[in-house]
């Protein structure tokens, strides 16, 4: 019973943090371009700035 008193609120708290994290990812529009982000991670070179003739 003592274990329940600790573990149940703890697990609920963790899950609630997970929910807040999900809502944050949604608000920062991380699901708007799923395909693009998936391939963007493979681009290793950063954009170069070169004066062009």
């Amino acid at each position: 019973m003592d274990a329940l008193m600790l573990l149940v609120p703890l697990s609920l708290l963790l899950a609630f943090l997970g929910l807040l994290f999900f809502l944050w990812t949604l608000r920062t529009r991380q699901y708007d371009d799923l395909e693009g982000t998936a391939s963007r991670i493979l681009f290793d070179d950063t954009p170069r700035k070169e004066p062009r003739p």
Partner: protein
Amino acid sequence: MSLIGRVTPEAAPASAAACLHCGAVLPPGAGRFCCTGCEGAHALVAGLGLDGFYRRRAAADGALRPAVEPAAVDFAGHARPGREGEHSLELMIAGLACGACVWLVEQALAAEPAMLRARASLATRRLTLAWRGPAARANDFAALLARLGFRVAPWSPACLSATEDAEGRTLVRVLGIAGFGAMNVMLVSVAVWVGADMGEATRGLMHWLAALISLPVVLVAGMPFYRSALAGLRGGRVNMDLAVSIGVLATTAMSLSETIRNGPFTFFDGAVSLLALLLAGRVLDRAARRRARQAVAELLALQEGSVSLFGEDGGVSAVPVESVRAGQRILVAAGERLRLDLLLEAGEALLDTAATTGESLPRRFAAGAPLPAGAVNMGAGFTARVAAAAADGSLAAMARLLERAEGARGRYVDLADRVVRYFVPTVLAVALATFLGWWLWGGLHWQAALVPAVAALIVTCPCGFAIAIPAVQAVSVGALFRRGVLVASATALERLASADHVVLDKTGTLTEGRPALLPGDWTEAELRAAAGLAQASRHPLSRALAAACPEAPAAEGVEELPGRGLRAGGRRLGSAAFLGIPGEDAGMTLWYAAPGQAPVAFRFADRLRADATAIVAELQALGLSAELLSGDAPNAVAAVAGQTGITAWTARATPEAKAARIEALRAEGRRPLMVGDGINDAAALALAHVAACPGDATDLAQTAADLVLQGEGLAALPAAIRSARRAQRLARQNITFSLAYNLVAVPLAVANIVTPLLAALVMASSSLVVTLNSLRAESGKESPRWTR
């Protein structure tokens, strides 16, 4: 070292005869590129040091071929000024097919010294740019993208509304909340299910915990259902969402009463998982249709453009169509589509009015004549006075008519709602009878009597039932999308499945809608030479000639004499009068003459699409009677009808006549499928039971249609009908199955022997069976006919 590791990614493409830039199959005899545009694009990519693109590229073959001439849109007017001389611009970018394309676009733009930010979104096809410098640089960036083979258009409000989708985002948010609730309620519910030796106090604590989690979740996550149910009730309709709302709310209320009374069971887990499952189905359904809507918005954005307006000082500037007022003078270039109703000031104009009247031959207009918006200038450029601003013109009037017709179609009652109309009252009656039976005659306390009554509600409740149709829809719409059929309306598939008559437009639907070179008595060398000359002109016939021989090298020093023809040295290409040949031009003809050679004629006609006959036959085999309804002359319509095997045809049909014909068919009780592409078809499309149009149709036709057939022609239409019918069959099976399930579950619930565990099992298994059945909608038997 393993052999596999030594395969170099730089290896040349398997087929040697593929264009190095766009990957299209090369015509025999061509070098490494399919056209000069691709050669230029390849050199540009290499010059930027971005060759890596070709190793990563996964775009469809031929998709990146640069257009012969980019759309004449002034992007500078769309750039937004920021602080300190910065400007930003949002573009819709078509042709973006893979991560490598995103990389190429971003890197190519970032290489510009003035560029501050360039970010492309692959899912929404949205490109955001910010640079330091004048707004006019926008055109340079757009031109750079066009040279790489990407078509760009200003980001329009239509694109925005198609991608933003606030409602969809709300659904995802509440799905997250419902998912959180479902998982955590299970945490305590499972403990109660398995803990048979649990003390009453502990069980009570568990139930209170479950209530604590469920109540807010049911309140928030159920909102979309409650709102829609209320809206339905206000309109006097019983819909599926009402069934869901009653089930969820009654279950929650009963569970709360059981918790207070410390009863043996609560059903919180059932209510919350039900919400999570239904929301998941809804999110998937919406995502499938959002992609289709977005693709339609993309097609429309590419058609937008600007007009060339004469200023006070006599100079010409490109301005957006909306800003032009009646009475102003504009310049219409050769090959340009009229975006406003005009009055011809002087001289003569030759217009292709196929989109407005359906006529396949261009018509001559004299000075002072009104010119309809939507027509294409086939002759020389001319000056005209604007008869009405865009908002008061004929196109806007047509758009308003369409809106009204759309409203009528929105009242269509779909299969789910038809079933629910009987289902909800029945279930409520059973629940009420159960409650009264146990309370009055069964000898239970009223609170205890609530349990079997609500259990009956939740086991019948719509779970499998409400998921039955969204799941089939999501799978079929997604499968059709991959075949190039864009389904934008929620009930379109159901209406398509029940269509029993097809009304086809001729010009642009059964035919290609643009001139194509006919076989004639010219030689291959003459064609090459003439096509090389024609590449310099925007005239529709020149473009048709150039398209007939894309590998021809462009001629040097070509001079265009507007309204007459082209000249390069002694070689000439143009009208009969230009070459000094006596006689009137019959239909659409270009003459070509080289010094010392007899002139040859290239004749053009609006050709029947190669697969038109096969498609009409296939539609008839599907049980749809076909009819041809065209605004063109009787002989042209009769010829097409004869070739495609359609016996019923009408020629010279005005837009009103087309709409009237559709209404007459509906009054007879037929369910017509209208297929058309022109402005003159829009009213008929909106009135029809279900409507489809080709991907290159006018924007009005695309907004009026339920389905847009991307790619070439109508090839996907029979497959779409088969797919819609299959989806309909599966939806019926799913509903039948769910109802049959209830025949077993309801007696158990009424007999008060359903525990929450049993209810969860019943719900989960029925949903699973229905979902698996829905997945069969994708595995169409026939192989895809449409490819990119």
